[in-house]
């Protein structure tokens, strides 16, 4: 990758039956998601970057520093890599209070002046928990403590290993909000492992898709998720991620209107203020194509688009159609029969119909 400040890892190793062979390059800013089905090697990859995975061979370079070069016998141990790691289960120290946990890394990092401990404690709402014992916390509280603990160790790279997967829906939503705020306020690059596409669509700027121990695609989020050549294991994830500006709320019908490059979208009402950026994932299977604008359709969103390309889907009855809506990429999964019946071809003008109901959450 051209940017020298990012992370570059080229690693090979064997973990049980899985042979991992990875070559990933990440930008020096923003959130990169490692996404893929269970058992694809996402967590192992993250552990190898942190230096926790024994047996991984290859090169890891971050921000101009060489962390590992097996050929030359270079291996910087995890505690010298300046990274923060948030595990799937919080792994808080049970022999310390919440405050003790927070200060563990903070002290070892030398309590740097640019880290505002009190502000972080308030931002993540852990002030009421400071004196509590770790084993009295709920799952969501533990993860918030774990995130603040990692931030306070003054990391140059933050690693998240499915931090929300063990949480219930409410706690998960709450933490997703915290992470979105973190993305906006923190200059430190983050790598986020997940198998939930909705988390990835909300948080990530950059995407690395893994399947069976290999990188199948990597690049900017929108462009990567609308590729037509992804393996079947990732077919449920493909679809567009639209980033737009909230232009208004309809209090009567409880809808929020979003303006993006290809037009406007109605989504179920969200709390975001007018003028704020909002992301919205449109799954390929929720898009209906028509040749003309429908005047009596229940679909609230009709987006004028042009067919760019078509590719076979994993089921022989279906195909994936890539659309261009004023510069935004959309993806539609339709039957081959419809493709033929509508006489579609690259260049055809179509209307992409999306139920607002499908854009909830």
């Amino acid at each position, binding site marked *: 990758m051209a940017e020298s400040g990012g992370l570059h890892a080229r690693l090979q190793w064997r973990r049980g039956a899985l042979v991992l062979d990875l070559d990933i390059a990440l930008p020096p800013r923003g959130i990169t998601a490692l996404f893929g089905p269970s058992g694809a090697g996402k967590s192992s990859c993250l552990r190898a970057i*942190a230096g*926790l995975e024994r047996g991984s061979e290859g090169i890891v370079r971050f921000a101009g520093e060489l962390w590992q070069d097996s050929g030359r016998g270079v291996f910087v*141990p*995890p*505690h*010298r890599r*300046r*990274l*923060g*790691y948030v*595990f799937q*289960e*919080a*792994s*808080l*120290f*049970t*022999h310390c209070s919440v405050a003790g946990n927070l200060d*563990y*890394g903070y002290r*070892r*990092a030398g309590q740097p002046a640019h880290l505002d401990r009190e502000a972080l404690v308030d931002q993540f709402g852990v002030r009421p928990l400071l004196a509590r014992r*770790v*084993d009295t*916390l709920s799952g969501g509280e*533990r993860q918030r403590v774990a995130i603040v*603990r*990692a931030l306070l*160790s003054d990391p140059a790279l933050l*690693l998240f290993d499915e931090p929300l997967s063990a949480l219930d829906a409410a706690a998960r939503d709450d933490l997703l909000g915290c992470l979105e705020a973190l993305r906006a306020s923190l200059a430190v690059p983050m790598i986020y492992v997940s198998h939930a596409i909705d988390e990835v669509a909300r948080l990530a700027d950059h995407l690395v898709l893994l399947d069976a121990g290999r990188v199948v695609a990597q690049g900017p989020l929108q462009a990567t998720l609308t590729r037509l050549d992804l393996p079947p294991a990732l077919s449920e994830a493909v679809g567009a991620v639209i980033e737009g500006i909230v232009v208004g709320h309809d209090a009567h019908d409880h809808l929020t209107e979003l303006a993006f490059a290809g037009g406007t979208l109605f989504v179920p009402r969200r709390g975001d203020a007018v003028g704020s950026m909002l992301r919205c994932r449109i799954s390929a299977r929720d898009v209906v194509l028509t040749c003309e604008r429908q005047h009596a359709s229940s679909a609230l969103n009709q987006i004028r688009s042009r067919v760019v390309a078509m590719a076979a889907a994993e089921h022989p009855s279906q195909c994936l159609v890539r659309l261009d809506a004023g510069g935004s990429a959309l993806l539609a999964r339709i039957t081959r029969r419809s493709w033929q019946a509508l006489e579609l071809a690259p260049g055809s003008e179509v209307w992409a119909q999306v139920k607002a109901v499908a854009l909830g959450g």
Partner: protein
Amino acid sequence: MPLLSPQDLQAFGLTLRLAATVTVLLLVLGTPLAWWLALTRSRWQRPVAAVVALPLVLPPTVLGFYLLLLLGPHSVVGHLMAAVGLSALPFTFAGLVVASMLYSLPFVVQPLHNAFESVGTRPLEAAACLRAGPLDCFFSVALPQAMPGFVTATVLGFAHTVGEFGVVLMIGGNIPGRTRVLSLRIYDHVEAGEYHQAHMLSLCLLVFSFSALLAMSLLRPRRRQRG
């Protein structure tokens, strides 16, 4: 007649001194060994663990017999010690300490091994990702989290050393003030038909053992949820 004769008290003191010495030495030496057993992936892990467990199944007299041969003045060790100006170990307090350490080894190492294993590698990884080096990880995370194992190891190691008989008889003889410990003294009393004195000492040991086990279970924190 006094409850305990001066000789009985002497045996009592000697036993406590022996058990305390052995327990402290075993905790110091057993901790790194248990740590290694809990974390290593070496193929020597199982053989070493089996050797550590050997005194659990071996008759104490067998252990004592081999030690007598190994440490005696005509053995290699004995010659080496004589060469550097040390007296042979058998029939001395030092010999008793060495023998007791071997005999009580599994009672200290196994609780520590289990404790380190139940702490697991995750807290250590979390500490490493918070900039703690290996030694720092050990003292700030592994040691405090394994504390219940240290309580168990201390109590078991101490109590087991107090109660040994076969090994001390073989390696220590029965020398008043030097190697005559409580269990030997009780045997002497019974042999001499002094059932009253044997009763007193036995009762002391019984109360001590019960108190030790009770203290251990009271000191151990309630089972906590893992964080």
